[in-house]
């Protein structure tokens, strides 16, 4: 518009008009602020606190302690010297060794080379400020008052480090070869699993969309089964199938299932449905006209596949790869069960926090784990932006023609993969009902007597159902209302952009990292939200946040399909937005809302990583019980609990289908 730009427009130099806000606008703004605040509290603030935790380091501050030594009589005292001065004199502790973790201890006797156990010499020690802490034996002492000890007791005096801010945790991390190795391992496992999963998923989706093989509906159902079980379950199944006593142990040609092989097979199992569904969608929207064009140009099958099929599904493949990569690199249950000695980042966090109570290092690993996930996320976002043009094209649905040379291999492959999935589930089922694998194979129900095991018993199962229901209810509410604000509120562009960004973030935040961040943030008496720590509420908040992104995108897609002018019409008719929202928006989007609810339910049943740090005694969960029982070596009950989760999710899916059908018949008559 050259004309528009040519002339200056002085009248616009002044300030622009601002619309008076209506009551509706204020309500909407308030709503958005509330949900935005929810995301800030449930995501932004905990992550920030965790980041700052990763920077909090511990160091022995030698200038903070003063000593006095008596002569041989034990009565006459020498001059007051700081530990720092003594250290410089004696050269006892190198500068680098002063850096430590929160549990570090430094023996005071190190500063006194002439120290002798049971000598008559007495020692005095005090801090120069109130915070300087030391232990006598295991008793904590603090403060500036002089304390006097005989040499026998002084032997037991150890200094405690002070907290500072710095990057030492990170340099420590990278100088520990085992931990740094985990980064390589995690990326390698995630990359291999991604390639394998996406290839298999593509082949399956291709078969289902481009061939005329039979039983497509059945295969579709079977291929989504892994979503319904916790990620640990394939680990357990693999132990029974390929472990040292495994049925098919010989298939591994002497390699151990504990380690990379197990991690890859298990990862492929639990990520396959995700990749499959994404690529299936991508292939379903392909345009038949491209195939007709290819056929009229007499392009070979292979050429058509390379030039039409693959590019058409390109974005789906990238998306699927991103999802699989993130799932594998952030999953903690599977490598913990089957990973053996193969170090993975997610397991490192668990080891650091649970095994060594080293929260700072746990935070460091969390921050490092965020990097690949965020990178993958950023790449995917960039790719997705280019996708718009492809989707807006008016496509003619492609209808495959029967061709035995294509259909038969597709069918065979789908059978093979289905067999693998069903085999894993069947193995778990067997494990759950056998008395003592592999020595006593009589059937029993004793593995379901969860109350006699670690993990929380049947109460944990009840808790899981409660959590899943609350998450589904509360989550669909928050997510849908939030997506509505992003999509349908006019104005507040900045706020909406920020909100959308926050909503996309959970995708890139591993569950463990989120859980750990929650401890740091909520378990702080200064935090007014502290009372929710250790309750069902925090589990619900955490689970909703953990699975926010996919639910948000689902809601957004549904809302985008609504006419953008509904809000304008309602405003012109002087109807408040909430009337439109409840009478039109919600009923029209009901199928999407139900999908969000079942998605949240199923995931709340199976999630482990985010809640493993957050459950309390009366909020133990079935999925965590699977982990804990497996951890304690009670593999059969773990499998049994895993199967309980599976049954529940299958039932939930069936109920969802029934409700959806019933409700849709009533509210979607117009379709």
């Amino acid at each position, binding site marked *: 518009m050259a004309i528009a730009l040519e002339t200056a427009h002085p009248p616009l130099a002044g300030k622009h*008009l601002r619309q008076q806000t209506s009551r509706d606008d204020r309500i909407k703004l308030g709503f958005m602020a509330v949900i935005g605040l929810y995301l800030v509290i449930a995501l932004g603030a905990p992550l920030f606190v965790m980041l700052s935790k990763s920077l909090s380091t511990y160091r022995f501050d030698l200038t903070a302690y003063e000593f006095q030594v008596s002569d041989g009589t034990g009565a006459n005292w020498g001059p007051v010297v700081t530990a720092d001065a003594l250290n410089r004199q004696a050269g006892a502790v190198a500068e680098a060794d002063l850096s430590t973790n929160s549990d570090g201890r430094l023996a005071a006797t190190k500063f006194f080379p002439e120290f002798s156990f049971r000598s008559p010499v007495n020692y005095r020690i005090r801090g120069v400020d109130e915070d300087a802490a030391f232990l006598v034996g295991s008793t904590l002492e603090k403060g500036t008052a002089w304390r006097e000890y005989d040499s026998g007791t002084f032997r037991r005096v150890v200094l405690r480090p002070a907290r500072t801010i710095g990057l030492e945790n990170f340099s420590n991390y990278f100088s520990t070869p085992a931990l740094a190795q985990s980064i390589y391992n995690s990326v390698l496992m995630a990359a291999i699993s991604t390639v394998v999963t996406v290839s298999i998923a593509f082949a399956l989706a291709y078969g289902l969309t481009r061939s005329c093989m039979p039983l497509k509906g059945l295969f579709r159902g079977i291929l989504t089964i892994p979503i319904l079980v916790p990620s640990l379950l394939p680990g357990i199944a693999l132990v029974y199938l390929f472990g040292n006593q495994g049925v098919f142990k010989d298939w591994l040609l002497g390699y151990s299932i504990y380690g990379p092989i197990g991690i890859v097979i298990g990862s492929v199992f639990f990520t396959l449905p995700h990749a499959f569904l994404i690529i299936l969608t991508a292939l379903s929207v392909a345009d038949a006209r491209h195939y007709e064009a290819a056929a009229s140009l007499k392009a070979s099958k292979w050429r058509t596949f390379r030039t039409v099929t693959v590019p058409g599904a390109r974005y789906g493949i990238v998306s699927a790869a991103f999802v699989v990569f993130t799932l594998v690199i952030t999953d903690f249950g599977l490598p913990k069960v089957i990973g053996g000695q193969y170090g993975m980042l997610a397991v490192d966090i668990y080891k650091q926090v649970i095994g060594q109570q080293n929260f700072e290092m746990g935070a460091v690993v969390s921050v490092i784990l965020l990097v690949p996930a965020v990178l993958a996320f950023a790449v995917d976002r960039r790719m997705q932006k280019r996708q718009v043009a492809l989707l807006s094209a008016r496509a003619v649905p492609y209808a495959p023609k029967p061709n035995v040379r294509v259909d038969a291999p597709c069918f065979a492959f789908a059978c093979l993969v289905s067999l693998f999935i069903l085999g894993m589930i069947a193995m778990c089922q067997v494990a759950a009902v056998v008395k003592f694998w592999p020595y006593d194979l009589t059937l029993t129900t004793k593995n379901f007597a969860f109350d006699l095991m670690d993990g929380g018993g049947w109460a944990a199962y009840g808790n899981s159902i409660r959590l899943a229901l609350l998450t589904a209810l509360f989550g669909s509410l928050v997510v849908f209302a939030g997506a509505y604000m992003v999509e349908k509120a006019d104005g507040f562009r900045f706020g909406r952009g920020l909100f959308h960004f926050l909503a996309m973030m959970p995708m890139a935040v591993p569950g463990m990292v989120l859980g750990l961040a929650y401890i740091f943030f909520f378990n702080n008496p200064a935090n007014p939200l502290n009372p929710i720590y250790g309750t069902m509420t925090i589990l619900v908040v955490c689970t909703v946040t953990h699975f926010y992104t996919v639910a948000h995108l689902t809601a957004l897609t549904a809302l985008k399909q609504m006419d953008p002018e509904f809000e304008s019409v309602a405003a012109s008719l002087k109807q408040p937005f909430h009337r439109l929202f409840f009478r039109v928006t919600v009923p029209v989007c009901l199928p999407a809302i139900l999908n969000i609810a079942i998605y949240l339910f199923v995931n709340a049943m199976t999630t482990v990583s985010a809640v493993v740090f957050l459950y309390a005694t009366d909020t133990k969960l079935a999925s965590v019980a699977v982990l804990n029982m497996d951890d304690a070596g009670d593999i059969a009950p773990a499998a049994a609990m895993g199967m309980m989760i599976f049954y529940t999710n299958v039932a939930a899916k069936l109920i969802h289908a029934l409700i959806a059908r019933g409700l849709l018949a009533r509210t979607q008559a117009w379709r």
Partner: protein
Amino acid sequence: MRHALSIEPTPTSLPRAADPAAPYLEITDLWKAYGDFVALRDISLSIARGEFICFLGPSGCGKTTLLRAVAGLDLQSQGTILQGGRNISTLPASSRDYGIVFQSYALFPNLTIEQNIAFGLENTGRSKAAVASRVSELLETVGLSAHGKKYPAQLSGGQQQRIALARAIAISPGLLLLDEPLSALDAKVRVHLRHEIKALQRKLGVTTIMVTHDQEEALAMADRIVVMNHGIIEQVGSPTEIYRYPETLFVADFIGETNQFPARVVRGGEVEIGHSAFCCATDGFAAGQAATAVVRPVDIIPHGAHAHAVNAIDRPATPQNLIDAEVREMEFLGMFWRTRLTAPRLGERTLVADFSVNAVRRLSIETGGVIQVEIPRERLLLYPRSA
């Protein structure tokens, strides 16, 4: 029709200017900018009560932006809008007084036709019975009484359009805004609905603004047309004014069809096109000034195969504007013939002329023949030529 449709006075339309001749809607010095891009540039416009106004222009000209500013859906950057004497410049949409019909109709898919129409009536203190009777009254008005219980998806496009209209007028707004209401329909339904909407508007007497890019629609329906281009108003006028006396080359070109020739003013009342002089009004032009001369194909008068003024079928010719032309192509368009002529006097430029079927028969015009045509001096329009 037994139920006369009444406009219920609404509180927002009460404060009216004392002077009945005062404009109902008055837009003054309105600007709209999106960042650096200026979408509306210093728009001023007055609309009288009960008028049917069309905003006409190519896509991107700012017509929808202007409509949305009036509706309060996209606030203008600067400028004031008065409606019925009330300053609504910065009011939120819900505090203004209008009904709106969008191109997509935006009917609520999960509500029945009745529920759609009742949407704006409920929640306003009316009794259920009052709402129901008003809905049936509106349904009858738009001729869809039998379809009240159906869902929008079960109706045809034209029917949906009428429901959207009924919903918009249900609350008896002071102003009716129509955003390309007919563009999604096929040609026949479109022509039919034009008349219906116009008739309904007449009956209700509601001030109406319709946005359209279809000049035929605007010419057929509007009391006055606002022709817009690049964010400015090119011309405001009645359909005949706009058509017969386009004030700018853009309007001339956009409304109807034109032949355009580079021209130079020779002296008062005379211009040079090609190598010949033609008579026309040259008000506002200096001698020697370059200009663009415009004549519409339908305004060209055929005079038959012989160079005699007496053969003119319509009226006496202006000798100077009579030219010999060879018929190069003829295209039968049903109601008339479109011909492409070349004339030595026009420097061999193609001149498009539309001749009635009658004229072609009576004057035996055929491809390859040479005919004499007249460019009537009052239909030859001059516009400044931009360098």
